[in-house]
Structure formats: structure tokens, C-alpha cells
């Protein structure tokens, strides 16, 4: 696949997703999201160690959303409250792109080195006076010091709490996979029989063909007219 060589450096999950879509010269649509699901998941898996631990959870969230979207394309009945929650990926990516492009323009401006500078500060009177704040006490200083400590603590705990979050999301993706494969190991016959009417059956069949084409689903058939077995191939 073409992207394997092109994408070496990415800053966040949306940056990676956008690079994948752009390297394939696609627009941001729900269909193109499905198309880049596999390379996305693959790149996240391969770069597990290189992604900053505090960012990993966010990459996994996007991976989970993509796998979910793809699974839903296959099994419209699939529903997961957690993964439905929050902004839809397409909107989020469009918005991100707007600012990523603005950031590039700002980078160009920065490169010109046309900075403005403040006037050098030179105190008028070199002799220092003593002008203390009114009503300050040792207790107030202690409280201020404690406030600063409280501000620091979550920052220092960040790597640990992020790793914990990443584990939770990885479990979520596993659950999703299990559910999808269970549903899919059901035969093609059952897959189609879930359709309400003939029209829906055709749609399901076309959807399935598309998924096979995209290599999300592999198809096995033991003989002519035997039941067709489906397997999901997308994994994390």
C-alpha cells in the first residue's frame, strides 16, 4: 500500500488520519474514512512504541471509532453507546483540517523572522525601595504554595493516567471485534436472512461485496451452493 512509505511522522490521530486521506487524494467523507481504516489501525499498531504514552489513548479512540464505523457498515444493527458518543469523526476531521492549514500559514510567517520586539526595560531609579504588599502572612504564602502543588500534580500524573485510559480503550476494541466476528461467523445465508425484504437483501449483498473488495471481510465457500462463511479481517 502506498501510504506505508509516505507517512513517517504524525503528531496526533487526526493528523495521521488526514495524512492518510490526503495521500490517497480523497476528500473527507464517510466512505474515505472506511477506506483508510485499515492503514490507520495498522500504523497505530506498528508505532505503538513510538507514540507518546500520554497520546496513545487518543489514537486508540480514533481507531475504535473507525473500526466501529466499518463494522456498522457491515452490520447496521450494531450499536455501541460509548462509541456513538462525542463528535462524529468526519466533522471533527474537517474542522481539524481547517486549523491544520491555518497553522501551516502561521509557520510560513514565522519562518520570515519578522518579529517585533519590546523596548528594553531599564528601571529609572536604580536604588531599590521596599514596597511590601499589605496584609500578607505566612499562612497566605502556605496556601499559595499548596495551590501550586495541586496544579502540578495532575500534570505529573499524566503519563500514568493516560496509560490506564489506553488499556480501557484497547479492551473496548477487543470487545467490539469479538462481537463482530461472532455475528459474522454466522453464515452468509443468515446474514441475508436478517434482511427484512428483497430490497434490503440486495443492499446487504452489495454492502457485503464492497466489504469483501475492501478486504474487511473474507469469504469462504466450501462448494457450489454451499453456505458462504464470512470472517472479519480488520483487527487492532
Amino acid at each position: 500500500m502506498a501510504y506505508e512509505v509516505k507517512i513517517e511522522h504524525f503528531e496526533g490521530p487526526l493528523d495521521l488520519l488526514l495524512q492518510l486521506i490526503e495521500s490517497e487524494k480523497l476528500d473527507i467523507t464517510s466512505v474515505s474514512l472506511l477506506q483508510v481504516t485499515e492503514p490507520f489501525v495498522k500504523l497505530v499498531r506498528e508505532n505503538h512504541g513510538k507514540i507518546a504514552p500520554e497520546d496513545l489513548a487518543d489514537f486508540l479512540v480514533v481507531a475504535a471509532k473507525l473500526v466501529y464505523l466499518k463494522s456498522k457498515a457491515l452490520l447496521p444493527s450494531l450499536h455501541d453507546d460509548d462509541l456513538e458518543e462525542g463528535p462524529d469523526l468526519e466533522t471533527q476531521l474537517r474542522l481539524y483540517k481547517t486549523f491544520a492549514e491555518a497553522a501551516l500559514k502561521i509557520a510560513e510567517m514565522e519562518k520570515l523572522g519578522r518579529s517585533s520586539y519590546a523596548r528594553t526595560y531599564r528601571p529609572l531609579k536604580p536604588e531599590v525601595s521596599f514596597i511590601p504588599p499589605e496584609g500578607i502572612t505566612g499562612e497566605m504564602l502556605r496556601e499559595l504554595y499548596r495551590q501550586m502543588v495541586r496544579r502540578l500534580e495532575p500534570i505529573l500524573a499524566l503519563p500514568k493516567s493516560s496509560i490506564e485510559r489506553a488499556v480501557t480503550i484497547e479492551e473496548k476494541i477487543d470487545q467490539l471485534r469479538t462481537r463482530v466476528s461472532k455475528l459474522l461467523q454466522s453464515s452468509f445465508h443468515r446474514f441475508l436472512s436478517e434482511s427484512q425484504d428483497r430490497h434490503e437483501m440486495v443492499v446487504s449483498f452489495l454492502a457485503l461485496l464492497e466489504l469483501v473488495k475492501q478486504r474487511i471481510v473474507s469469504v469462504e465457500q466450501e462448494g457450489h451452493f454451499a453456505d458462504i462463511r464470512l470472517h472479519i479481517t480488520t483487527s487492532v
Partner: protein
Amino acid sequence: MNLNSLLEAILFASAQPMSINKLSELVTRDAKEVEQALEELKERLESSESGTVLVRSGQMTELVTHPEAAGVVRAVLKQELHGELTKPSLETLAILSYRGPLTRPEIEQIRGVQSTMILRNLLLRGLIEQKEDTRLGQPTFGVTVAFFKHIGVSGPEDLPDYLALRGHSAVEQALQELV
């Protein structure tokens, strides 16, 4: 003396960013008149081809050297060219300069990645600051005068596509869905 010339003298003497409120206190005129006079000052500096410009970011304003003089001024101040901003820094600064002030969760929704450390770095460099307003109990952040000085513009409206992005209805809608 004109109010705008008086403000110029104050900003010159203080050699740091000052808030509209503080200026208004010092000259005992209301904030609106000060705003108006700062606008006049900005225009006068431009039209007289001054070597200084007025930079504005929200309530703060500062008198600084003209971006075109950057090279020589750096030599006078014996300053190095500041390190290049990283991509995540630029992204966050772009989001905050076009749409700020925003809370950390709002920034994270747009960037799709936790932003605690990047905000901390930008605060340490003085390129962003915590604003007085909070939203849903979260502090909000906005870019500082120092950021505009760094890239050599006099305020957010001088950024490329500012008006388009600031008022963009698609952006507006998406932000509302996100946050």
C-alpha cells in the same frame, strides 16, 4: 497633548503590555475613549511610517518595533532568532488565535489529542495565557501579545483568512457540535 500621543508615551515608558483598563485608569478616561485613541495611534504609526507598531491581543496592548526592522533590532538586542514552533504548538496557537479563548477540553476536541503538555509549554513560553473567564468550571486560554510579536503581526485580524475562519459558518457549526 492628544490622548493617542499620551497613550503612546505611557506604552513607551512602561515597556510591557498594558490592559485597556489600566490605561483608562492612568489617563482618567473611559475604556471606550481609550479604545478609540488606540485605534488612532495605530493608524498614525502606520501612516507616518513609524519604526514602531501597536500590537493588540484582547484587552492587552503593547508598543513594539516594526517587523521589518527585525534583523537590525535583533542585532542591537543581541538576541537569537527564536526557535521554530513545533507543529502541535502551531496548531494550538492557530486554534486559539482564530477561535480563542477556549477551554482545554474544547481545544482537545478540535485537536483530537490530549493537550495538557502543549498548553503548559505555550504558557511557559508566554505565547498563551489563562484568561479570567471560565466555562463550565474550566479555565479558558487565549494567545498573548507575545505570540503576535513573534510572528510579526499586530493582532488576530492580521492573520491569514482571519475573518473567513472566525465567522465561518461550517466551523461555527462544527464547534458547536463538538463542545
